[in-house]
Protein backbone atom coordinates (compact mmCIF):
# COMPACT_ATOMS: atom_id res chain seq x y z
CA UNK A 1 0.00 0.00 0.00
CA UNK A 2 1.26 3.52 -0.78
CA UNK A 3 2.60 5.45 2.21
CA UNK A 4 2.48 9.18 2.94
CA UNK A 5 4.76 11.18 5.21
CA UNK A 6 3.16 13.96 7.25
CA UNK A 7 5.67 16.47 8.65
CA UNK A 8 4.45 18.29 11.77
CA UNK A 9 5.19 22.00 12.31
CA UNK A 10 7.83 21.05 14.92
CA UNK A 11 9.69 18.95 12.36
CA UNK A 12 8.64 15.55 13.70
CA UNK A 13 7.02 13.31 11.14
CA UNK A 14 4.63 10.37 10.78
CA UNK A 15 4.71 7.87 7.95
CA UNK A 16 1.21 6.57 7.32
CA UNK A 17 0.21 3.53 5.26
CA UNK A 18 -2.87 4.23 3.17
CA UNK A 19 -5.74 1.84 2.64
CA UNK A 20 -7.39 0.92 -0.63
CA UNK A 21 -8.99 3.96 -2.27
CA UNK A 22 -8.40 6.19 0.73
CA UNK A 23 -7.71 9.89 0.64
CA UNK A 24 -4.66 11.28 2.42
CA UNK A 25 -7.09 12.76 4.99
CA UNK A 26 -8.77 9.40 5.63
CA UNK A 27 -5.42 7.67 6.12
CA UNK A 28 -4.34 10.39 8.55
CA UNK A 29 -7.52 10.32 10.65
CA UNK A 30 -7.60 6.51 10.68
CA UNK A 31 -4.15 6.60 12.27
CA UNK A 32 -5.26 9.24 14.78
CA UNK A 33 -2.77 11.75 13.43
CA UNK A 34 -2.82 15.12 15.20
CA UNK A 35 -2.93 18.07 12.87
CA UNK A 36 -5.65 16.87 10.49
CA UNK A 37 -9.08 17.79 11.82
CA UNK A 38 -11.39 17.03 8.87
CA UNK A 39 -14.50 18.43 10.53
CA UNK A 40 -16.69 17.76 7.51
CA UNK A 41 -15.52 14.18 7.16
CA UNK A 42 -14.13 14.53 3.65
CA UNK A 43 -16.94 16.33 1.85
CA UNK A 44 -14.83 19.33 0.75
CA UNK A 45 -16.83 21.71 2.91
CA UNK A 46 -14.66 22.85 5.83
CA UNK A 47 -10.96 23.40 4.96
CA UNK A 48 -9.70 21.73 8.16
CA UNK A 49 -7.56 19.06 6.50
CA UNK A 50 -5.19 21.60 4.95
CA UNK A 51 -1.66 20.45 3.99
CA UNK A 52 1.34 21.94 2.22
CA UNK A 53 2.48 19.52 -0.45
CA UNK A 54 6.21 18.98 -0.91
CA UNK A 55 7.15 20.91 -4.07
CA UNK A 56 8.55 17.86 -5.82
CA UNK A 57 5.15 16.15 -5.64
CA UNK A 58 2.94 19.06 -6.56
CA UNK A 59 2.56 18.39 -10.27
CA UNK A 60 1.84 14.72 -9.69
CA UNK A 61 -1.35 15.42 -7.74
CA UNK A 62 -4.81 15.43 -9.28
CA UNK A 63 -6.00 18.87 -10.42
CA UNK A 64 -7.81 21.11 -7.99
CA UNK A 65 -11.57 21.51 -8.39
CA UNK A 66 -13.22 24.91 -7.98
CA UNK A 67 -14.71 24.11 -4.57
CA UNK A 68 -11.34 23.08 -3.15
CA UNK A 69 -9.78 26.23 -4.57
CA UNK A 70 -12.45 28.41 -2.92
CA UNK A 71 -12.17 26.61 0.43
CA UNK A 72 -8.40 27.06 0.51
CA UNK A 73 -8.97 30.82 0.61
CA UNK A 74 -10.48 30.31 4.06
CA UNK A 75 -7.84 28.12 5.73
CA UNK A 76 -6.82 29.02 9.28
CA UNK A 77 -3.11 28.97 8.42
CA UNK A 78 -1.89 30.95 5.44
CA UNK A 79 -2.66 29.60 1.99
CA UNK A 80 0.53 29.00 -0.01
CA UNK A 81 0.98 27.99 -3.65
CA UNK A 82 1.43 24.36 -2.50
CA UNK A 83 -1.68 24.31 -0.30
CA UNK A 84 -4.17 21.48 -0.83
CA UNK A 85 -7.00 19.82 1.08
CA UNK A 86 -5.88 16.32 1.98
CA UNK A 87 -9.43 14.96 1.58
CA UNK A 88 -9.12 15.71 -2.13
CA UNK A 89 -5.86 13.79 -2.56
CA UNK A 90 -6.87 10.25 -3.42
CA UNK A 91 -3.85 8.08 -2.95
CA UNK A 92 -2.81 5.94 -5.90
CA UNK A 93 0.31 3.75 -6.20
CA UNK A 94 1.89 6.62 -8.17
CA UNK A 95 1.71 8.72 -5.00
CA UNK A 96 3.66 6.23 -2.88
CA UNK A 97 6.14 8.25 -0.84
CA UNK A 98 4.17 11.52 -0.98
CA UNK A 99 5.41 14.11 1.53
CA UNK A 100 3.13 16.80 2.96
CA UNK A 101 3.68 19.39 5.68
CA UNK A 102 1.00 20.15 8.28
CA UNK A 103 0.04 23.77 8.96
CA UNK A 104 0.24 25.38 12.40
CA UNK A 105 -3.55 25.51 12.74
CA UNK A 106 -6.63 23.98 11.13
CA UNK A 107 -9.21 26.27 12.80
Amino acid at each position, binding site marked *: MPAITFIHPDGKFDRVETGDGESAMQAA*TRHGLDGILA*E*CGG*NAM*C*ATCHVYVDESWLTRLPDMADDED*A*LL*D*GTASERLPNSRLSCQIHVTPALDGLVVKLPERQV
Partner: protein
Amino acid sequence: MTASGSPVSPGSAAVPHLDVDPFAMDFFADPYPTHELLREAGPVVYLDKWSVYGVARYAEVHAVLNDPATFCSSRGVGLSDFKKETPWRPPSLILEADPPAHTRTRAVLSKVLSPTVMKQVRDRFVAAAEARVDALLEKRSFDAIADLAEAYPLSIFPDALGLKPEGREHLIPYASVVFNAFGPPNQLRQEAIERSAPHQAYVAEQCQRENLAPGGFGACIHARVDDGEITATEAPLLVRSLLSAGLDTTVNGIGAAVYCLARFADQWQRLREDLSLARAAFEEAVRFESPVQTFFRTTTREVELSGAKIGEGEKVLMFLAAANRDPRRWDKPDSYDITRRTSGHVGFGSGIHMCVGQLVARLEGEVMLMALARRIAKIEITGDPKRRFNNTLRGLDSLPVTITPA
Protein backbone atom coordinates in the same frame (compact mmCIF):
# COMPACT_ATOMS: atom_id res chain seq x y z
CA MET B 1 -41.64 -3.11 19.85
CA THR B 2 -40.53 -6.45 18.56
CA ALA B 3 -38.72 -7.60 15.46
CA SER B 4 -40.62 -10.32 13.66
CA GLY B 5 -38.43 -12.67 11.67
CA SER B 6 -41.14 -13.60 9.21
CA PRO B 7 -40.51 -12.62 5.62
CA VAL B 8 -43.34 -10.48 4.31
CA SER B 9 -43.28 -8.27 1.25
CA PRO B 10 -41.95 -9.74 -2.00
CA GLY B 11 -38.32 -9.17 -2.83
CA SER B 12 -37.34 -8.24 0.68
CA ALA B 13 -37.32 -11.59 2.42
CA ALA B 14 -34.19 -10.76 4.38
CA VAL B 15 -35.53 -7.50 5.73
CA PRO B 16 -36.90 -7.68 9.28
CA HIS B 17 -40.23 -5.93 9.84
CA LEU B 18 -40.40 -3.86 13.00
CA ASP B 19 -43.42 -2.65 14.87
CA VAL B 20 -41.85 0.65 15.83
CA ASP B 21 -43.09 4.23 15.47
CA PRO B 22 -40.07 6.53 15.46
CA PHE B 23 -42.39 9.56 15.41
CA ALA B 24 -44.35 8.73 18.56
CA MET B 25 -44.09 10.71 21.80
CA ASP B 26 -42.86 7.75 23.86
CA PHE B 27 -40.11 7.19 21.30
CA PHE B 28 -39.03 10.85 21.46
CA ALA B 29 -38.95 10.70 25.26
CA ASP B 30 -36.28 7.97 25.12
CA PRO B 31 -35.21 6.94 21.61
CA TYR B 32 -32.09 5.02 22.61
CA PRO B 33 -33.53 1.54 23.30
CA THR B 34 -35.38 1.68 19.99
CA HIS B 35 -32.28 2.92 18.17
CA GLU B 36 -30.47 -0.15 19.47
CA LEU B 37 -33.33 -2.41 18.42
CA LEU B 38 -33.28 -0.89 14.93
CA ARG B 39 -29.50 -1.26 14.61
CA GLU B 40 -29.40 -4.81 15.88
CA ALA B 41 -32.38 -6.05 13.85
CA GLY B 42 -30.37 -5.81 10.64
CA PRO B 43 -28.58 -3.46 8.25
CA VAL B 44 -31.91 -2.57 6.63
CA VAL B 45 -35.30 -2.83 8.36
CA TYR B 46 -38.90 -2.20 7.35
CA LEU B 47 -41.23 -0.13 9.51
CA ASP B 48 -44.80 -1.34 8.95
CA LYS B 49 -46.31 1.62 10.77
CA TRP B 50 -45.35 4.04 7.98
CA SER B 51 -44.45 1.58 5.18
CA VAL B 52 -40.86 2.72 4.91
CA TYR B 53 -37.44 1.13 4.95
CA GLY B 54 -35.07 2.20 7.69
CA VAL B 55 -31.31 2.24 8.20
CA ALA B 56 -29.83 2.82 11.65
CA ARG B 57 -26.26 1.52 11.39
CA TYR B 58 -23.46 3.92 10.53
CA ALA B 59 -22.31 2.11 7.38
CA GLU B 60 -25.74 2.02 5.74
CA VAL B 61 -26.68 5.57 6.76
CA HIS B 62 -23.38 6.79 5.34
CA ALA B 63 -23.88 4.75 2.16
CA VAL B 64 -27.39 6.10 1.56
CA LEU B 65 -26.26 9.68 2.17
CA ASN B 66 -23.43 9.25 -0.31
CA ASP B 67 -25.43 7.73 -3.18
CA PRO B 68 -27.78 10.57 -4.14
CA ALA B 69 -28.36 9.14 -7.63
CA THR B 70 -30.05 6.08 -6.11
CA PHE B 71 -31.40 7.66 -2.93
CA CYS B 72 -32.76 10.96 -4.17
CA SER B 73 -33.92 14.09 -2.36
CA SER B 74 -36.16 15.64 -5.04
CA ARG B 75 -39.08 13.45 -3.96
CA GLY B 76 -38.86 15.01 -0.52
CA VAL B 77 -36.63 14.32 2.48
CA GLY B 78 -39.64 13.67 4.70
CA LEU B 79 -42.17 10.85 4.53
CA SER B 80 -44.28 12.61 1.91
CA ASP B 81 -43.40 11.51 -1.64
CA PHE B 82 -43.52 14.62 -3.84
CA LYS B 83 -44.23 12.41 -6.84
CA LYS B 84 -47.51 11.33 -5.26
CA GLU B 85 -48.44 14.20 -2.95
CA THR B 86 -48.35 17.97 -3.28
CA PRO B 87 -45.70 19.37 -0.92
CA TRP B 88 -47.02 21.59 1.90
CA ARG B 89 -44.82 24.43 0.66
CA PRO B 90 -42.87 25.02 -2.58
CA PRO B 91 -39.95 22.56 -2.41
CA SER B 92 -36.54 23.77 -1.34
CA LEU B 93 -34.18 24.38 -4.27
CA ILE B 94 -31.30 22.82 -2.38
CA LEU B 95 -32.53 20.38 0.27
CA GLU B 96 -35.26 18.87 -1.90
CA ALA B 97 -33.30 18.86 -5.17
CA ASP B 98 -30.97 16.48 -7.02
CA PRO B 99 -28.00 17.15 -9.30
CA PRO B 100 -27.62 18.85 -11.67
CA ALA B 101 -30.17 21.41 -10.36
CA HIS B 102 -28.83 21.03 -6.83
CA THR B 103 -25.21 21.56 -7.84
CA ARG B 104 -25.82 25.13 -8.98
CA THR B 105 -27.87 26.31 -6.00
CA ARG B 106 -25.62 24.53 -3.55
CA ALA B 107 -22.57 26.33 -4.95
CA VAL B 108 -24.24 29.67 -4.21
CA LEU B 109 -24.96 28.88 -0.55
CA SER B 110 -21.50 27.30 -0.11
CA LYS B 111 -19.91 30.56 -1.19
CA VAL B 112 -22.17 32.69 0.99
CA LEU B 113 -21.32 30.55 4.05
CA SER B 114 -17.68 29.75 3.24
CA PRO B 115 -14.68 29.53 5.61
CA THR B 116 -13.58 32.92 4.26
CA VAL B 117 -16.90 34.50 5.28
CA MET B 118 -16.68 32.87 8.72
CA LYS B 119 -13.35 34.62 9.31
CA GLN B 120 -15.09 37.92 8.59
CA VAL B 121 -18.00 37.40 11.00
CA ARG B 122 -16.04 35.70 13.77
CA ASP B 123 -15.30 38.82 15.85
CA ARG B 124 -18.97 39.79 15.85
CA PHE B 125 -20.01 36.30 16.96
CA VAL B 126 -17.39 36.36 19.75
CA ALA B 127 -18.55 39.77 21.01
CA ALA B 128 -22.18 38.62 21.10
CA ALA B 129 -21.21 35.48 23.03
CA GLU B 130 -19.34 37.57 25.61
CA ALA B 131 -22.33 39.89 25.94
CA ARG B 132 -24.60 36.88 26.47
CA VAL B 133 -22.36 35.56 29.26
CA ASP B 134 -22.37 39.03 30.87
CA ALA B 135 -26.16 38.87 31.01
CA LEU B 136 -26.18 35.30 32.34
CA LEU B 137 -23.67 36.13 35.09
CA GLU B 138 -26.00 38.84 36.29
CA LYS B 139 -28.91 36.42 36.45
CA ARG B 140 -27.02 33.44 37.96
CA SER B 141 -30.18 31.29 37.71
CA PHE B 142 -31.88 31.01 34.33
CA ASP B 143 -33.33 28.75 31.65
CA ALA B 144 -30.38 27.53 29.57
CA ILE B 145 -32.67 27.03 26.57
CA ALA B 146 -34.55 30.35 26.38
CA ASP B 147 -31.82 32.53 27.87
CA LEU B 148 -28.81 30.89 26.26
CA ALA B 149 -29.42 28.34 23.49
CA GLU B 150 -32.13 30.49 21.89
CA ALA B 151 -31.01 33.95 22.94
CA TYR B 152 -27.49 33.65 21.55
CA PRO B 153 -28.29 32.57 17.96
CA LEU B 154 -31.20 35.03 17.95
CA SER B 155 -28.76 37.80 18.84
CA ILE B 156 -26.51 37.14 15.83
CA PHE B 157 -28.03 35.01 13.08
CA PRO B 158 -30.97 37.21 12.05
CA ASP B 159 -28.59 40.20 11.90
CA ALA B 160 -26.02 38.18 9.95
CA LEU B 161 -28.79 37.35 7.48
CA GLY B 162 -29.83 41.00 7.30
CA LEU B 163 -33.39 40.60 8.58
CA LYS B 164 -35.53 43.49 9.77
CA PRO B 165 -35.99 43.76 13.54
CA GLU B 166 -39.76 43.31 13.31
CA GLY B 167 -41.36 39.88 13.24
CA ARG B 168 -38.36 37.80 14.26
CA GLU B 169 -40.55 35.94 16.75
CA HIS B 170 -41.79 33.94 13.73
CA LEU B 171 -38.37 32.43 13.03
CA ILE B 172 -38.26 29.59 15.56
CA PRO B 173 -41.95 28.65 15.07
CA TYR B 174 -41.41 28.56 11.29
CA ALA B 175 -38.41 26.26 11.60
CA SER B 176 -40.38 24.07 13.96
CA VAL B 177 -43.08 23.67 11.29
CA VAL B 178 -40.49 22.81 8.63
CA PHE B 179 -38.91 20.08 10.74
CA ASN B 180 -42.25 18.71 11.94
CA ALA B 181 -43.41 18.53 8.33
CA PHE B 182 -40.71 15.98 7.44
CA GLY B 183 -42.52 13.55 9.69
CA PRO B 184 -45.58 11.41 8.99
CA PRO B 185 -49.12 12.82 9.10
CA ASN B 186 -49.29 12.60 12.90
CA GLN B 187 -50.65 15.20 15.30
CA LEU B 188 -47.33 17.06 15.48
CA ARG B 189 -47.24 17.53 11.71
CA GLN B 190 -50.92 18.29 11.21
CA GLU B 191 -51.07 20.91 13.95
CA ALA B 192 -47.81 22.49 12.86
CA ILE B 193 -49.01 22.94 9.29
CA GLU B 194 -52.46 24.16 10.36
CA ARG B 195 -50.85 26.93 12.38
CA SER B 196 -48.15 27.76 9.84
CA ALA B 197 -49.86 30.45 7.74
CA PRO B 198 -48.64 33.55 9.64
CA HIS B 199 -45.10 32.16 9.89
CA GLN B 200 -45.05 31.29 6.20
CA ALA B 201 -46.28 34.76 5.27
CA TYR B 202 -43.57 36.38 7.37
CA VAL B 203 -40.83 34.22 5.89
CA ALA B 204 -41.97 34.73 2.28
CA GLU B 205 -41.87 38.48 2.83
CA GLN B 206 -38.43 38.55 4.47
CA CYS B 207 -36.88 36.55 1.62
CA GLN B 208 -37.47 39.39 -0.83
CA ARG B 209 -34.44 41.40 -1.85
CA GLU B 210 -35.74 44.75 -0.62
CA ASN B 211 -36.20 43.38 2.90
CA LEU B 212 -32.63 42.17 3.35
CA ALA B 213 -29.93 44.53 4.65
CA PRO B 214 -26.86 45.07 2.47
CA GLY B 215 -23.84 42.94 3.39
CA GLY B 216 -25.87 40.18 5.05
CA PHE B 217 -26.06 36.54 3.94
CA GLY B 218 -29.47 37.22 2.37
CA ALA B 219 -28.24 40.13 0.26
CA CYS B 220 -25.21 38.05 -0.78
CA ILE B 221 -27.54 35.37 -2.12
CA HIS B 222 -29.54 37.94 -4.11
CA ALA B 223 -26.28 39.41 -5.47
CA ARG B 224 -25.71 36.10 -7.28
CA VAL B 225 -28.71 36.93 -9.44
CA ASP B 226 -26.70 39.80 -10.92
CA ASP B 227 -23.87 37.38 -11.78
CA GLY B 228 -26.38 35.14 -13.54
CA GLU B 229 -25.71 32.19 -11.21
CA ILE B 230 -29.34 32.02 -10.10
CA THR B 231 -32.57 33.63 -11.23
CA ALA B 232 -34.53 36.33 -9.42
CA THR B 233 -37.25 33.81 -8.59
CA GLU B 234 -34.74 31.33 -7.14
CA ALA B 235 -33.01 33.78 -4.81
CA PRO B 236 -35.87 34.21 -2.28
CA LEU B 237 -36.25 30.44 -1.99
CA LEU B 238 -32.55 30.08 -1.24
CA VAL B 239 -32.81 32.74 1.45
CA ARG B 240 -35.73 30.71 2.79
CA SER B 241 -33.37 27.76 3.26
CA LEU B 242 -31.27 29.78 5.67
CA LEU B 243 -34.38 30.89 7.55
CA SER B 244 -35.64 27.28 7.75
CA ALA B 245 -32.44 25.53 8.68
CA GLY B 246 -30.14 28.13 10.16
CA LEU B 247 -31.64 28.95 13.52
CA ASP B 248 -33.57 26.18 15.24
CA THR B 249 -30.78 23.72 14.39
CA THR B 250 -28.13 25.81 16.11
CA VAL B 251 -30.48 26.45 19.03
CA ASN B 252 -30.72 22.70 19.50
CA GLY B 253 -26.99 22.25 18.89
CA ILE B 254 -25.98 24.78 21.53
CA GLY B 255 -28.72 23.48 23.83
CA ALA B 256 -27.31 19.96 23.41
CA ALA B 257 -23.79 21.10 24.20
CA VAL B 258 -24.83 22.99 27.34
CA TYR B 259 -26.98 20.04 28.47
CA CYS B 260 -24.01 17.69 27.98
CA LEU B 261 -21.53 19.93 29.79
CA ALA B 262 -23.96 20.50 32.67
CA ARG B 263 -24.50 16.74 33.06
CA PHE B 264 -20.91 15.56 32.62
CA ALA B 265 -18.87 17.58 35.09
CA ASP B 266 -15.56 15.89 34.17
CA GLN B 267 -15.93 17.06 30.57
CA TRP B 268 -16.80 20.59 31.72
CA GLN B 269 -13.64 20.57 33.84
CA ARG B 270 -11.59 19.38 30.91
CA LEU B 271 -12.93 22.19 28.77
CA ARG B 272 -12.21 24.76 31.46
CA GLU B 273 -8.61 23.54 31.64
CA ASP B 274 -8.16 23.72 27.88
CA LEU B 275 -10.40 26.23 26.13
CA SER B 276 -9.10 25.14 22.74
CA LEU B 277 -11.38 22.11 23.16
CA ALA B 278 -14.49 24.30 22.81
CA ARG B 279 -15.02 23.52 19.15
CA ALA B 280 -14.55 19.80 19.75
CA ALA B 281 -16.94 19.93 22.72
CA PHE B 282 -19.62 21.36 20.45
CA GLU B 283 -18.94 18.85 17.67
CA GLU B 284 -19.12 15.92 20.10
CA ALA B 285 -22.45 17.24 21.39
CA VAL B 286 -23.76 17.22 17.82
CA ARG B 287 -22.70 13.57 17.52
CA PHE B 288 -23.95 12.63 20.98
CA GLU B 289 -27.38 14.31 20.84
CA SER B 290 -27.85 14.59 17.06
CA PRO B 291 -30.13 17.66 17.01
CA VAL B 292 -31.33 16.55 13.55
CA GLN B 293 -32.41 12.97 14.21
CA THR B 294 -33.62 11.70 10.87
CA PHE B 295 -34.06 12.36 7.16
CA PHE B 296 -35.67 10.37 4.37
CA ARG B 297 -34.56 9.60 0.85
CA THR B 298 -36.54 8.01 -2.02
CA THR B 299 -35.14 5.25 -4.25
CA THR B 300 -34.86 6.09 -7.94
CA ARG B 301 -34.44 2.43 -8.95
CA GLU B 302 -34.45 -1.05 -7.49
CA VAL B 303 -31.33 -1.34 -5.37
CA GLU B 304 -29.60 -3.86 -3.15
CA LEU B 305 -28.33 -2.38 0.08
CA SER B 306 -26.29 -4.67 2.34
CA GLY B 307 -28.13 -7.67 0.93
CA ALA B 308 -31.60 -6.15 1.18
CA LYS B 309 -33.52 -5.56 -2.02
CA ILE B 310 -35.41 -2.27 -2.10
CA GLY B 311 -37.76 -1.46 -4.97
CA GLU B 312 -38.02 1.79 -6.91
CA GLY B 313 -39.96 4.67 -5.34
CA GLU B 314 -39.51 3.47 -1.75
CA LYS B 315 -38.93 5.84 1.14
CA VAL B 316 -35.82 5.10 3.20
CA LEU B 317 -35.58 6.61 6.69
CA MET B 318 -32.04 7.34 7.88
CA PHE B 319 -31.56 7.34 11.64
CA LEU B 320 -28.66 9.79 11.87
CA ALA B 321 -28.76 9.74 15.67
CA ALA B 322 -28.55 5.93 15.78
CA ALA B 323 -25.63 5.94 13.32
CA ASN B 324 -23.84 8.45 15.53
CA ARG B 325 -23.98 5.94 18.38
CA ASP B 326 -23.39 2.76 16.39
CA PRO B 327 -20.86 0.68 18.36
CA ARG B 328 -19.64 -0.72 15.01
CA ARG B 329 -18.25 2.72 14.27
CA TRP B 330 -17.72 4.43 17.64
CA ASP B 331 -15.77 3.43 20.70
CA LYS B 332 -17.95 3.91 23.84
CA PRO B 333 -20.68 5.54 21.73
CA ASP B 334 -22.85 6.49 24.72
CA SER B 335 -20.10 8.54 26.36
CA TYR B 336 -19.80 12.27 25.81
CA ASP B 337 -16.05 12.71 25.34
CA ILE B 338 -14.82 16.10 24.15
CA THR B 339 -11.45 14.65 23.13
CA ARG B 340 -13.04 12.11 20.78
CA ARG B 341 -12.13 12.18 17.08
CA THR B 342 -15.58 12.97 15.76
CA SER B 343 -14.68 13.33 12.08
CA GLY B 344 -17.15 11.31 10.03
CA HIS B 345 -20.18 11.67 12.33
CA VAL B 346 -23.41 12.24 10.43
CA GLY B 347 -24.97 14.85 12.72
CA PHE B 348 -24.62 17.31 9.83
CA GLY B 349 -25.32 14.59 7.28
CA SER B 350 -22.73 13.58 4.69
CA GLY B 351 -22.26 13.82 0.94
CA ILE B 352 -23.67 16.46 -1.38
CA HIS B 353 -26.49 17.48 0.97
CA MET B 354 -24.30 17.76 4.08
CA CYS B 355 -25.39 20.83 6.06
CA VAL B 356 -24.33 23.87 4.08
CA GLY B 357 -24.42 25.97 7.27
CA GLN B 358 -22.17 23.66 9.29
CA LEU B 359 -19.45 26.31 9.55
CA VAL B 360 -21.90 28.82 11.02
CA ALA B 361 -23.09 26.23 13.54
CA ARG B 362 -19.55 25.33 14.57
CA LEU B 363 -18.55 28.95 14.89
CA GLU B 364 -21.56 29.75 17.09
CA GLY B 365 -20.98 26.64 19.20
CA GLU B 366 -17.26 27.19 19.61
CA VAL B 367 -17.34 30.84 20.62
CA MET B 368 -20.32 30.36 22.95
CA LEU B 369 -18.75 27.40 24.80
CA MET B 370 -15.42 29.18 25.01
CA ALA B 371 -17.05 32.28 26.55
CA LEU B 372 -18.96 30.11 29.04
CA ALA B 373 -15.98 28.00 30.08
CA ARG B 374 -13.69 30.98 30.52
CA ARG B 375 -15.96 32.79 32.93
CA ILE B 376 -18.09 30.17 34.63
CA ALA B 377 -16.77 27.65 37.14
CA LYS B 378 -19.83 25.47 37.44
CA ILE B 379 -23.19 24.84 35.75
CA GLU B 380 -25.74 23.07 37.95
CA ILE B 381 -29.05 21.71 36.73
CA THR B 382 -31.62 22.89 39.29
CA GLY B 383 -34.88 21.45 37.97
CA ASP B 384 -36.25 18.80 35.65
CA PRO B 385 -35.32 19.46 32.03
CA LYS B 386 -38.39 19.58 29.80
CA ARG B 387 -38.23 18.06 26.34
CA ARG B 388 -39.50 19.80 23.18
CA PHE B 389 -41.19 17.41 20.79
CA ASN B 390 -40.60 17.60 17.06
CA ASN B 391 -40.74 14.98 14.30
CA THR B 392 -37.14 15.66 13.26
CA LEU B 393 -35.39 17.79 15.85
CA ARG B 394 -34.23 16.63 19.25
CA GLY B 395 -33.81 19.19 21.99
CA LEU B 396 -35.07 20.62 25.21
CA ASP B 397 -37.85 23.10 25.89
CA SER B 398 -36.37 24.24 29.17
CA LEU B 399 -33.28 23.51 31.26
CA PRO B 400 -33.20 25.33 34.60
CA VAL B 401 -29.62 25.98 35.73
CA THR B 402 -27.61 27.97 38.23
CA ILE B 403 -24.09 29.06 37.41
CA THR B 404 -21.14 29.88 39.63
CA PRO B 405 -18.73 32.54 38.31
CA ALA B 406 -15.11 31.53 37.83
